């Protein structure tokens, strides 16, 4: 992780050095009729960064990407690529290229002609374009398939052609819209690794759209989480996972237990059952909040086995269900007013709890995190 500077605990969107900004969105809004697909977002993507845009279906990821590509023009706001305002420039005037969701390879052209297309359109002569296309075809390990048509390739091979076709133009920013969405799991993981190392070698910014959070977390330098056209949070994987700024992000990234609470005073919150918990991050007194507690940060034991230092952050409960995952066990524990998910390492059968067991659960005071409810 070279690019994003380390963050402090409150600002989870690290400021980026001005000169190194590849893409700069300021107050970008896109409306289709009365649908607001993208709502007033500010976003900076650094040069050479692997940047992911993550969010549920319909949250505006593709629309944002298409605006950067020039396939859609913003309704409002400013869009700069390396300091140049490109808001209403057509796509063929921008130093960016796109790997489309379903590749959009030209079916009537061979692999080589697909890859050399961009160069040909820019006026490179046929021989030179073919030579450089072949270099890229080699880079994506498709040598020997130059003369095939896209229909004669597997999904993974088509994906590589799409990648080569975009990269041959040496774009300053490469946009990828769910490029791995159509691949099966194994191939997907292979391509993740390949894409990541390709990006590192080329040093070009990749803007990568996905709704697969694991993909986003493992591949990216930074991630933007979008929801209903809004940009909720931008940060590194651990920022989003450990220090979410909203209930949605806490819930969306990984598994978590969200326990409703009210802020008593700056760093003390009160759970629904009256338990007082010291909050790691302050919120204004009186606000309705939720305490996010990851299933793996909760310990489980027999009643009365709670270590004294954890007494203030412990609750009695009853095991409601047990799920065996092989490497882990997931307990559904009913405490006084809600059910909590607890995840532990697998243990020998006689040490496992079974449904109906009375248990105690506790967590480290620093493991919880408070997010506003609104």
């Amino acid at each position: 992780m070279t690019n994003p500077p380390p963050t402090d605990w409150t600002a989870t969107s690290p400021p980026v050095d001005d000169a190194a900004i590849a893409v700069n969105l300021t107050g970008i809004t896109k409306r289709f009729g009365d649908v607001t697909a993208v709502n007033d977002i500010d976003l900076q993507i650094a040069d050479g960064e692997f940047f992911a845009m993550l969010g549920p279906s319909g949250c505006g990821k593709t629309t944002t990407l298409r605006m950067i590509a020039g396939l859609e023009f913003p309704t409002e706001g400013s869009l700069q690529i390396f300091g140049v305002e490109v808001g209403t420039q057509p796509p063929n005037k921008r130093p960016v290229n796109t790997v489309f969701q379903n590749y959009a390879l030209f079916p009537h052209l061979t692999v080589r002609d697909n890859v050399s297309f961009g160069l040909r359109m820019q006026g490179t002569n046929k021989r030179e374009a073919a030579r450089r296309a072949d270099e890229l075809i080699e880079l994506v390990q498709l040598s020997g398939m130059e003369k095939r048509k896209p229909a004669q390739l597997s999904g993974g091979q088509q994906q590589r052609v799409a990648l080569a076709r975009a990269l041959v133009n040496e774009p300053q920013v490469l946009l990828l819209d769910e490029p791995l969405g159509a691949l099966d799991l194994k191939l997907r993981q292979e391509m993740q690794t390949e894409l990541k190392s390709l990006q590192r070698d080329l040093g070009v910014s990749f803007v990568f759209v996905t709704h697969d959070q694991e993909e986003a977390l493992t591949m990216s330098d930074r991630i933007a989480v979008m929801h209903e056209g809004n940009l909720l949070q931008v940060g590194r994987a651990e920022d989003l996972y450990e220090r979410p700024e909203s209930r949605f992000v806490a819930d969306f990234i990984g598994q978590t237990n969200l326990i409703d609470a009210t802020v008593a005073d700056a760093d003390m919150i009160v759970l629904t059952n009256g338990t007082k918990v010291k909050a790691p991050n302050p919120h204004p007194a009186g606000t309705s909040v939720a305490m996010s507690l990851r299933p793996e940060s909760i310990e489980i034991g027999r009643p009365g086995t709670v270590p004294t230092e954890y007494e203030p952050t412990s609750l009695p409960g009853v095991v409601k269900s047990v799920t065996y995952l092989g490497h882990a066990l997931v307990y559904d524990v009913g405490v006084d007013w809600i059910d909590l998910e607890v995840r532990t390492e697998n243990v020998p059968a006689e040490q496992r709890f079974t449904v109906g067991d009375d248990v105690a659960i506790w967590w480290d005071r620093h493991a919880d995190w408070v997010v506003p409810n609104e």
Partner: protein
Amino acid sequence: MSTSAGITEPRGWFRRVLQANAWLVYAFFYLPIVLLVIYSFSDNRNVGVWGGATLDWYREFANDEPIKTALGNSLKIAAASTTVSVVLGTMAALALERYKFRGRGFFDALLYLPVIIPDVTMAVMMLLFFAEAAKILGFSRGFSTITLSHIAFSISFVSIVVRARLAGTDEKLEEAAMDLYASRWQAFRYVTLPTIMPGVLGGGLLALTLSLDDVVITQFVTGGGWNTLPVYVFGLIRKGVTPLINAVSVVMLVASTVLVGLSLLAQRIRGGEPV
């Protein structure tokens, strides 16, 4: 057509009836054609009486000035109307398939009209239209009116065939082309056109066939002694049928079959070579 794997083959008598039916249908279709072809080689003025084999009728066809003029007219009109209707029909297909605009649904329905309404209705409409237009613009009926009316009905067929093809191609392809530095025109020229080319060719051949075959509309809108081949043949029949008509029909039949065959072939093959 071939039976699909899941359906059990009909057996016994039922199967024999089906087979007999198939033969009957084919006989119904093709016996007249076979007869037509056979008698075009018959050395007897009366159709239906075999007088020994001869190529005289084809020779007569080749030496008959009015027929050759009519054939020439047919070809000129077909060439002109096909060219224009391919361009306009393709443009209409693109507009309807790719762009949203006010009144698209209406225009869409309108485009199918010439396919649906009877030839005679179309012919009368055309005639009335040209009669009115002639008053204002002062042109005479003939080549131009025939060509215009052929264009009018061919556009529909061309755009239907091209649209079918367009519907099967991905709109994203044009975006991909523009993302790869193609201008709008280049995207059309190097990506859209090649992918819809089979449809354009197929539509064009269809238009050509329709124009070459049309009798009804042409007969209504013609004037100034302009005759196309089918109209001329139609006139000949009134004077009595001779195997000459058979010979002419066979030539037209072969030409039409070849064109339709090419049209089907064109729709099947993938787009041509690139950039």
